[in-house]
C-alpha cells in the first residue's frame, strides 16, 4: 500500500499533473458557475480534450473539474441565487441573503473554507476507507456485482429523482436499453442497429452525456427563457465586500464543519445519494440542532446554514469516489460519467485497480486534496474576476456551449451522423426533462448496462440459469434485501404522497 501511495504521490505531484488539477479547477469553476451547467456537463466537455492524455492525468483533470464545478456552483448560488449545480441549491438559502446584505465576499470565503475543510476531511476518510473496501471487494463474485449494480441503479432512481421514482426507473430502463445497441460483447451478434452502419458499434457514451447534459442544458436556457441578472460591475471588490472572517465566525464554523463532513462523506459513499442530498441533509441537520435563537437566523444569512451544505457537498463528492474506485460502480451521475471516461481509456475501475494500477488509484485520491488547496489558494482570490463570467449574456453563451458540445462529439468520430443523432437526443432530453424525467439514471443505466449484462451472464451460467444466486450468497442476499427495502420505501413514500 505504501509503495502504491508513493507512486500515486509521485504521479500527482508531477509538474504536469499539478497543472492539470489547476486547469481542471479553473475550468470547472467557470463552467459550474454558469447556471444550468453542472459538473456532469463540465466533465463531459473535458472528455474529448483528454483523449490524448494518459489515464492518470485525464482523471486528475476531471477530478479538478468536478471540484471546481461544485465551487463554481456555490459562487453563482451565493451571488445571483441561481445554483449552477443541484448540490449547491441549499448554499443559496443563507449565502444569497448574506450577499444581498453586502457580505458576498464573506459568504464566498465561508463557502471556500467549508468546501476546503469538507474536502480535506473526506479525502482523509477516502485514504483510509478505499483500500479497505477494495480488499473486501476482491471477494465479490459476478452474482454480487450484479446485485450491487442493481442496488446502485435502484438507489440513484430513488434518491436522485425528487420523488419521481417511476419516471427515474423508466430512464434507467431506457439507459440500459440504449446500452444494448451494437455488438454483444460475448457472441459478437449485432443488436438493434436497424441496418444503420453508424449504430453497429453502439452509441457513444460521450455523445449521450453531451446531448443529455451540455446540449440540452443550452437548449433549456433558451427554452425556459432563463435570465441571468448579473453585471460585470457587480463583481467589483467593493461590491463583494471583505473576504476576511473574524475569530468568532471561525469558531462558529469549526464544529459545523466537523459534523457535516462526516455526514457528507457517509452520504456520498451511498450509491445514488451524492452531494445534493448531503447538502440538504446537512442544512436540515444543523438547523434542527441549533438553539431557538440561532434557528431564526437560518435562511436569512446564517454562517452555520452556509457552512453546513458547503462542507457536506464537497465531502460527498469525495465520498462518491469510494464505490467508483473500489467496486467500479459509480455512486452518482457525475462519477458515472467519470467511469465512462475511465473505460474509454481502457481502465477498469474496481478492486483490481488498487492492485494493478496504483498510480491511477492513488493519484486521483491525492489530486483531490491538491484540488482543494488550489480552489482555496487560487480561486478564492480570483473570484472577483472569475465572477465576471456570469455577466456573459445567454445569447453568446448558448451558441458557444452548442459549439463545444458538437465539436467534442465530432472530434471522436469525425462522423456527421453523430451530430444529427446528438441533436435529436438533446431535443428529446429537453422534452423529458421538462416533464421531470431525471437524466442521471439514464446515464448510469447506459454505463452499467454492459457490465450488468456481463455479470448476469456469468452468474446465470454458473447457476445453471437459475436466479437463486441472488439469495444463495450472503453478499448478494444482503444486497437483494437492500433492493427490496428501497422499493418498499418508495412504495411507502408514494402511498404517503399519493404520487410515485
Amino acid at each position, binding site marked *: 500500500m505504501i509503495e502504491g501511495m508513493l507512486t500515486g504521490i509521485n504521479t500527482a505531484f508531477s509538474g504536469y499533473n499539478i497543472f492539470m488539477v489547476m486547469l481542471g479547477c479553473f475550468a470547472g469553476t467557470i463552467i459550474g458557475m454558469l447556471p444550468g451547467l453542472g459538473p456532469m456537463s463540465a466533465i463531459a466537455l473535458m472528455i474529448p480534450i483528454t483523449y490524448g492524455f494518459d489515464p492518470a492525468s485525464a482523471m486528475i483533470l476531471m477530478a479538478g473539474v468536478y471540484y471546481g464545478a461544485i465551487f463554481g456552483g456555490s459562487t453563482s448560488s451565493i451571488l445571483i441565487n441561481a445554483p449552477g449545480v443541484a448540490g449547491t441549491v441549499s448554499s443559496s438559502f443563507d449565502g444569497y441573503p448574506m450577499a444581498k446584505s453586502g457580505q458576498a465576499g464573506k459568504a464566498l470565503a465561508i463557502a471556500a473554507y467549508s468546501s476546503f475543510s469538507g474536502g480535506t476531511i473526506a479525502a482523509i476518510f477516502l485514504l483510509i476507507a478505499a483500500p479497505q473496501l477494495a480488499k473486501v471487494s476482491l471477494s465479490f463474485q459476478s452474482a454480487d456485482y450484479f446485485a450491487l449494480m442493481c442496488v446502485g441503479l435502484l438507489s440513484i432512481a430513488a434518491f436522485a429523482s425528487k420523488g419521481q421514482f417511476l419516471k427515474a426507473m423508466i430512464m434507467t430502463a431506457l439507459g440500459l436499453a440504449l446500452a*444494448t445497441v451494437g455488438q454483444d460483447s460475448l457472441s459478437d451478434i449485432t443488436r438493434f442497429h436497424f441496418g444503420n452502419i453508424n449504430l453497429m458499434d453502439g452509441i457513444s457514451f460521450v455523445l449521450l452525456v453531451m446531448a443529455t447534459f451540455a446540449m440540452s442544458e443550452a437548449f433549456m436556457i433558451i427554452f425556459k427563457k432563463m435570465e441571468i441578472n448579473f453585471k460585470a460591475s457587480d463583481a467589483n471588490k467593493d461590491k463583494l465586500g471583505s473576504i476576511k472572517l473574524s475569530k468568532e465566525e471561525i469558531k462558529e464554523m469549526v464544529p459545523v464543519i466537523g459534523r457535516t463532513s462526516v455526514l457528507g462523506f457517509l452520504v456520498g459513499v451511498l450509491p445514488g445519494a451524492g452531494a445534493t442530498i448531503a447538502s440538504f441533509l446537512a442544512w436540515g441537520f444543523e438547523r434542527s440542532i441549533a438553539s431557538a435563537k440561532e434557528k431564526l437566523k437560518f435562511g436569512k444569512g446564517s454562517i452555520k446554514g452556509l457552512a453546513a451544505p458547503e462542507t457536506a457537498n464537497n465531502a460527498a463528492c469525495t465520498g462518491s469516489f469510494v464505490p467508483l474506485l473500489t467496486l467500479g460502480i459509480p455512486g452518482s451521475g457525475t462519477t458515472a460519467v467519470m467511469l465512462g471516461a475511465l473505460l474509454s481509456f481502457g481502465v477498469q475501475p474496481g478492486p483490481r485497480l488498487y492492485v494493478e494500477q496504483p498510480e491511477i488509484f492513488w493519484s486521483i485520491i491525492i489530486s483531490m486534496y491538491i484540488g482543494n488547496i488550489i480552489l482555496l489558494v487560487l480561486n478564492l482570490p480570483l473570484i472577483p474576476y472569475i465572477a465576471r463570467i456570469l455577466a456573459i449574456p445567454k445569447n453568446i453563451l448558448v451558441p458557444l456551449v452548442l459549439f463545444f458540445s458538437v*465539436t467534442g462529439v465530432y472530434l471522436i468520430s469525425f462522423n456527421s451522423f453523430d451530430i444529427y443523432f*446528438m441533436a435529436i437526443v438533446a431535443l428529446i432530453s429537453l422534452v423529458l426533462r421538462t416533464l421531470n424525467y431525471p437524466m442521471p439514471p439514464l446515464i448510469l443505466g447506459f454505463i452499467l448496462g454492459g457490465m450488468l449484462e456481463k455479470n448476469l451472464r456469468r452468474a446465470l451460467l454458473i447457476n445453471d440459469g437459475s436466479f437463486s444466486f441472488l439469495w444463495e450468497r450472503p453478499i448478494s442476499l444482503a444486497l437483494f434485501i437492500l433492493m427490496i427495502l428501497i422499493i418498499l420505501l418508495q412504495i411507502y413514500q408514494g402511498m404517503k404522497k399519493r404520487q410515485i
Partner: protein
Amino acid sequence: MSISYTRISALIFLLLFIIYSYLASEIRVFVFDENADFNARTFPKLISYLGIIVSFLTLVLSKGEDEPLNQFEWIKVLILFSLVFTYGLIIKSIGFFISTNLFLIFSYYYLGVRNYKVIVLCSFPVVAVLQFMLHGLLDVYIRDPFLKLLGVIS
C-alpha cells in the same frame, strides 16, 4: 383517468418497450445458443420487462400535474436545433473552420446579438484558437478543405 403529458409520455414509453421486447425476441442468435441459459436476447428481454412494468405503473398511477408546455420557447429551440443539424450537414463538405464560424454567427444573430464586433470576436478568434490547440498542439487532425486551400494546414 385524466390525460396529462406524463401519461402521454408513459404511454409512448410503454409502446417503445413493447416494440423493444418484440425486437429483442427477434435477435438472431447462433443455433447452439438458442436454448442456452443466457444468450444475446436474454438481457434485452429483461430490460423490456422492467420498462413495460414501470411505464405501465407510471401510466396508471401518475397525476395530471404537469406544467403547460406551450409557455416555453419551442420555436427558438427548434430553430437552434435546425442550425445544429445544418452544422452537421456542412461540417464535412466545407470544413470545420468555415462551418463552425457560420454556425456561431447565425446563432448569435438569431438569438439577438446585433453588435458585429461582438459577433466577430466571439466566433473567429474562438474557433481559430480551438483549432490551433487541437491541430497544432494536440495533433488532432481535422479535415478542412478551406484551410488546406489557404495553405494553413497540410
